[in-house]
């Protein structure tokens, strides 16, 4: 009989939470690995730039506690991908500290492998000079030495190779820095000599937790089973089920192309895939193809600080003001700029986002506004925090008391929900590095503890 390899994915993001009952149903299946993704670029460049997480330490510990106290005593390898949100050194260390706390509290001893994904600025500068670093899409600037030097913590997405090595060394827990999301899952299948195409395609599905089920969610557990010529997925919560369409549709999710996926060192071709319902909510997938690339390219990610922000949120209910809102906002800005004539105009930007009108789509909004209330987000971007604060304060008071024509509500234009009204946001970052780099040797160091 063919050997089945089972992988338990507790949730789509470590710290998002999952029902313990679903996870324990997964444990009953005696999985060969528990793998959880902990990072993404989705939440923007701030995590990487500032070295912080977007999930709380409390939630991360709560999720890890159930994973570790069930997995470690059963000797099930546990892999955490893109630890701490962005997988840079600070993020990995933050995760390790939580893990060590849980191990200590529960008297557990493990062999831990840590795989670092930080790439030194010098090696990127060198590769860039050799023409080995290229933008991922035409709207990304080519790298310069200056951009690289201004970037905090460059990381690269690892493939399965270093994770496979840690599994071969008998690690019980593997904490990965930034990883290509499916790689930590694929490593389990490949470790057990399963097909890499099936292993990666399954990883692509499992990394989002139960999002491939119906109803889909990242906050629930899912089980993947790799066989010789196919894999299957099934929900571990009786309220969800996997269907042919829900699983096939998930292959689409957050990727630029529906059936060609680019990973570290390979291309995954899903054009010939077959999706088949086996009954009882289990879906079988076959014909996922792993094609090694001639050149081994890794994806670099890095963020740099570009400005500082201060903002204020206010509601507007007055019909006369709403009728002329955008024009009045322009006049508010003009008055602020006139007041601060001594400050170079390019040192700051004033932006109005009119929620209820067109804040989400901006100039792409086609619906005509017909509401009775708008939430205004007044944002000031400045080259330093003091400037952003000062401009925001003046813009807020100017807007509050702005005497527009036909006005009847002469006591004030804005309803502030909070006091104080202005929020000092801190630095704003951008993804300054999002490039492919050609490598000859594996740059991901493994450390055992």
């Amino acid at each position, binding site marked *: 009989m063919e050997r089945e390899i089972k992988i338990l994915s507790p949730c789509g993001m470590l710290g998002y939470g999952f029902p313990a009952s679903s996870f324990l149903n997964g444990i009953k299946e005696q999985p060969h690995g528990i793998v959880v993704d902990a990072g993404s*670029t989705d939440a923007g460049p701030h995590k990487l730039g500032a070295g912080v997480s977007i999930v709380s330490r409390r939630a991360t510990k709560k999720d890890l506690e159930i994973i570790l106290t069930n997995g470690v005593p059963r000797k099930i390898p546990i892999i955490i991908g893109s630890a701490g949100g962005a997988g840079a050194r600070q993020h990995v260390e933050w995760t390790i500290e939580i893990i060590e706390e849980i191990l200590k509290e529960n008297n557990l001893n493990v062999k831990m492998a840590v795989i670092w994904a930080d790439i030194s600025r010098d090696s990127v500068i060198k590769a860039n000079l050799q023409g080995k670093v290229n933008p991922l899409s035409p*709207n990304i600037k080519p790298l310069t030495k200056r951009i690289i030097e201004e970037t905090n913590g460059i990381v690269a997405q690892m493939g399965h190779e270093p994770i496979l090595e840690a599994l071969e060394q008998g690690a019980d827990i593997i904490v990965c820095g930034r990883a290509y999301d499916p790689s930590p899952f694929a490593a389990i299948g490949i470790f057990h000599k399963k097909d890499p195409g099936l292993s990666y395609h399954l990883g692509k599905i499992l990394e989002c937790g139960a999002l491939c089920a119906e109803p889909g969610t990242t906050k629930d557990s899912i089980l993947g089973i790799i066989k010789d010529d196919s894999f299957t997925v099934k929900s571990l919560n009786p309220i969800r089920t996997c269907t042919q369409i829900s699983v096939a549709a998930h292959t689409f999710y957050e990727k630029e192309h529906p059936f060609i996926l680019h990973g570290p060192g390979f291309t995954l071709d899903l054009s010939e895939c077959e999706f088949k319902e086996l009954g009882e909510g289990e879906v079988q997938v076959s014909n996922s193809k792993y094609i090694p690339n001639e050149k081994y390219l890794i994806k670099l990610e890095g963020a740099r600080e570009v400005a500082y922000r201060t903002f204020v949120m206010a509601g507007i209910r007055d019909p006369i003001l709403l009728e002329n809102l955008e024009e009045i906002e322009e006049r508010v800005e003009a008055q602020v700029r006139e007041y601060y004539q001594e400050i170079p105009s390019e040192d700051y930007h004033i932006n109005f986002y009119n929620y209820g009108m067109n804040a989400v789509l901006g100039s792409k909004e086609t619906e005509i506004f017909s509401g009775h209330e708008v939430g205004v987000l007044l944002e000031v971007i400045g080259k330093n925090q003091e400037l952003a604060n000062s401009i925001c304060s003046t813009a807020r008071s100017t807007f509050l008391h702005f005497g527009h024509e036909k006005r009847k509500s002469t006591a004030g234009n804005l309803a502030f929900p909070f006091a104080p009204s202005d929020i000092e946001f801190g630095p704003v970052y951008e*993804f300054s590095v999002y490039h492919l780099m050609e490598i000859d040797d594996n740059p991901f160091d493994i450390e055992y503890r």
Partner: protein
Amino acid sequence: MATLFEMAKVLRSKNSGPFELTLDVLFDSHEKFQKVRDSGKLTVQTICNLYNISEKEVRHIVFFEPALGVKITILRDVSSGSVGDRDVYGAQQHAPLMNVIIE
């Protein structure tokens, strides 16, 4: 008359990395999938008009029969979470696509 929103089971937008936005439209039957595919209404030009972008900013429009869906990937004007971005996850940029009339 049916709009794309009425015919779709899923109609969504999301980042595909911080510099691209991907729009997925999924159907619950072959019939609907084929009707939309063969209608010729989802073209590069349609997307350019809806999203106010040029042809070279449309990366792909790909119909994928096994998943009964079409994927459209475009370049973002502003990268995710940087100054001027309005939608960090790109999760609410599907609205312009909803009202395309298919039949």
